[in-house]
């Protein structure tokens, strides 16, 4: 049962991943990516990481992808405005990506993953356990990441704003 689920989810995520790459319209790419994220969330549930799955859906599908969609709409890029690359560049891209995959799988094939030493604990992915770890062992990185967020927010606001010199007089009067 779980195996079937795994294969189905894998299949879905790979196919939609490919669709992200090959879709002509950016909107289609975004939608495919959302499906991919859902498939990956399903994998998390299979891995007993239930809280992670929920957060994943909320953050990626809910926040990040909405941001992408929003920007696409803002810039009105939903048309197939993208000029085609020349064929050599495309070929080079596909070949090097496949080369990378071959190399990686080749490298990983020979590697031996050590067996788990502890018994499986299905409650690892629950909020309670994760909270314990996050606020005990990782409290400093946690605080630092909040600073990172703050900086990112400030940066995004600053970048998104028009430069003062670009604001025309009429706009000032409107304000």
């Amino acid at each position: 049962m779980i195996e079937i689920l795994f294969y189905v989810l894998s299949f879905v995520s790979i196919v939609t991943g490919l669709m992200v790459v090959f879709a002509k319209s950016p909107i289609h790419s975004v939608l495919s990516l959302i499906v991919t994220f859902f498939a990956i969330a399903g994998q998390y549930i299979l891995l007993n990481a239930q809280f992670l799955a929920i957060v994943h859906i909320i953050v990626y599908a809910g926040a990040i992808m909405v941001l992408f969609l929003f920007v696409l709409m803002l810039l009105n890029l939903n048309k197939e405005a993208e000029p085609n690359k020349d064929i050599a560049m495309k070929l080079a891209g596909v070949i090097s990506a496949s080369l990378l995959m071959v190399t990686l799988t080749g490298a990983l094939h020979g590697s031996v993953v050590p067996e788990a030493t502890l018994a499986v604990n299905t409650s690892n992915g629950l909020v309670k356990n994760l909270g314990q770890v996050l606020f005990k062992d990782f409290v400093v990185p946690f605080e630092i990441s909040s600073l990172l967020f703050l900086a990112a927010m400030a940066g995004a606001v600053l970048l998104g704003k028009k430069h003062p010199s670009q604001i025309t007089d009429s706009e000032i009067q409107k304000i």
Partner: protein
Amino acid sequence: MPISIDHYVYLSTVLFCIGVMGVLLRRNAIVLLMCVELMLNAVNLLMAAFSTHFNDPSGQVFVFFIMVVAAAEVAVGLAILVMVYRHAKSVDIGLFNKLKG
């Protein structure tokens, strides 16, 4: 644990390479960013898989941190793209060749 860790390793490798391929093939900067997200997710999946395999919640905490970084990256990256679009009226990375030596 019915599914071996190897399966997850290969799955995330495939997803990662799809992301790389996207980055190499597409010229739309927004799609490029999405492909980067795909790559990050491949890594996240691997993290979670190993976390479960070794029965260590730290891996999942790392996934959270990666999510934080990804969210920040997307916020800033998209803001930059909006700025670029204002200037160039396009998000085609082929046009960004001002760094020519």
